[in-house]
């Protein structure tokens, strides 16, 4: 299966679930910003969760099917259409060769994930297919997709993918009459983010902490895949110790010298020297991946134990879902 990029949009990159093995050499995790959407798209096709997908940022992009395709997409940055025909999200679609597909604006979020059966076949670099543009490594030639790029999927389809494909294949666009309800896995309020207090939580003034847990913070214009600048009331410190650079990870919320907060995201540095007020609960990182500059978000504190339990429960539910799809196509 093969597609050609006709219009790349503002930032489109090939990503998988990230690169963990070289953190000690300061190679960031990278990978998809919204892993729940990316995994949903892969799951709907019978792909492994870690299969490489395209992460589109907003809409205004277009690609053409250069062969028959089995595709699925999920995310809140765009809606896919083949001309006038709306393609429904979170379910497998058969798309005949020659079909042109456009991404049109979906204002509820920022990123949309396109999966095709077999996963996009780009070379594995340092154990991952994720693009890290700053160092020009991974993904499609280490860079964002451009007009004319041709991307091919691996021929190695799973048993489930093969069965889904044969159930939908024909002369016209066709789709399965089931879908994955991704939003069922997430809280209804997608701007309220659960956090666990971080190691330097007590370095900050009590009033600042109350504000942090009650006021809204707005994503600044400079927000990107490395991190989000959060604009709002300043977070003041009572302990003014110097923090030596230490390990940080996506979801870490740092407080800079001027009292502003930065939420670290997929392409963040592996170490940082700013005190940390909070760590976003892993289950809510996919929600954060859909934020865009101008969005106002809120924080709610939960315990470390609760965050861990929520994560394990979410994974158990996803495992069940994957199994249900597999059984459906036995």
């Amino acid at each position, binding site marked *: 299966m093969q597609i050609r990029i006709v219009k790349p949009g503002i930032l489109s990159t090939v990503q998988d679930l990230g690169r963990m093995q070289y953190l000690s*050499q300061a190679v960031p995790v990278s990978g998809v910003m919204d892993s729940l959407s990316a995994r949903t798209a892969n799951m709907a096709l019978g792909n492994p969760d870690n299969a490489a997908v395209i992460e589109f940022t907003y809409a205004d992009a277009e690609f053409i099917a250069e062969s028959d395709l089995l595709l699925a997409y999920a995310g809140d940055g765009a809606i896919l259409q083949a001309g006038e025909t709306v393609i429904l999200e979170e379910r497998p679609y058969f798309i005949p060769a020659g079909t042109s597909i456009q991404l049109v604006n979906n204002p509820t979020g920022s990123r949309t994930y396109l999966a095709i059966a077999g996963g996009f076949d780009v070379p594995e670099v340092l154990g991952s297919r994720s693009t890290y543009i*700053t160092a020009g490594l991974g993904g499609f030639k280490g860079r964002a997709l451009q007009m004319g790029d041709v991307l091919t999927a691996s021929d190695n389809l799973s048993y489930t993918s093969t069965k889904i494909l044969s159930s939908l294949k024909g002369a016209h666009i066709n789709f399965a009459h089931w879908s994955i309800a991704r939003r069922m896995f997430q809280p209804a309020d997608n701007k309220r983010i659960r956090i666990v207090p971080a190691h330097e939580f007590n370095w900050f003034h009590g009033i600042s902490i109350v504000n942090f847990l009650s006021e809204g913070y707005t994503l600044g214009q400079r927000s990107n895949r490395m991190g989000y600048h959060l604009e709002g009331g300043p977070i003041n410190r009572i302990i003014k110790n110097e923090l030596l650079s230490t*390990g940080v990870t996506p979801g*870490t919320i740092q407080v800079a010298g001027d009292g502003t907060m930065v939420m670290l995201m997929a392409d963040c*540095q592996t170490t940082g020297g700013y005190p940390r007020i909070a760590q976003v609960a892993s289950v809510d990182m996919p929600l954060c991946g859909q934020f865009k500059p101008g969005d106002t978000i809120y924080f709610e504190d939960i315990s*470390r134990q609760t965050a861990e339990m929520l*994560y394990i429960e979410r994974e158990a539910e996803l495992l069940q879902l994957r199994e249900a799809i597999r059984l459906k196509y036995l």
Partner: protein
Amino acid sequence: MRSPINSAISFGIYSLSEQSVTLEFGHEISEELHHQISSFDRLIHSNTFAGFKTTVPAYSTLSIFYDILEVSQSDMPGEDCFTKVSNYLHQLQSEQLTQPNTPNNSITNITIPTCYGGEYGEDIAEVAQLNNLSIDEVISLHSTAIYKVYMIGFVPGFAYLGGMDQRLATPRKPSPRKAIPAGSVGIAGEQTGIYPLETPGGWQLLGRTPIKLFDANKAQPSLLKAGDQVKFQPIDHNQFNQYHQ
């Protein structure tokens, strides 16, 4: 004074995320702490637990990343994943006290050929002037010291080096440059470093090395790693250009 170090290893543990913990060995930059962190890092890598992924050593901490599902399904004692991993690491620490030290005999010495001054080191005159030194003295002080790699951070392959002669300490540029070429050797405050990739930055530039500090095509992509010893070797323009042939 390195032999009795085992008995001195102690750390606190805190949760970094659901999938990582950080061991805190102290609160300062010292060779002693660095040695403790390196030996515990080696110990974990030779005694991994179910779900272990990787570590990130820093000045005074060692962060450990793992797969939460594998940890939760493992039979390590503890009511949740953080406790399971903490118990395991404390156990490892106490067992290590009774074991003979496994010294790291393989300290790697790396020489960084550097062309000082001129177009590659635009700020060398400023660094000299601010510190009441001649340019030759700056080059000599910078290239005779032996530096220790404390950690890799900031961007892929960037080494935090300890051991710079404090007579060279120079504040950062008031406004950062938009792009500093890969291989640039510079000073920021009391530290010196080498830019592995072209990035914006406010460092005072002394020179440039023609060698690659980071290469994603290599099995060990970063030329430097925590624990290495580094020395700068002055080279001239001709020698610099020969590296590119």
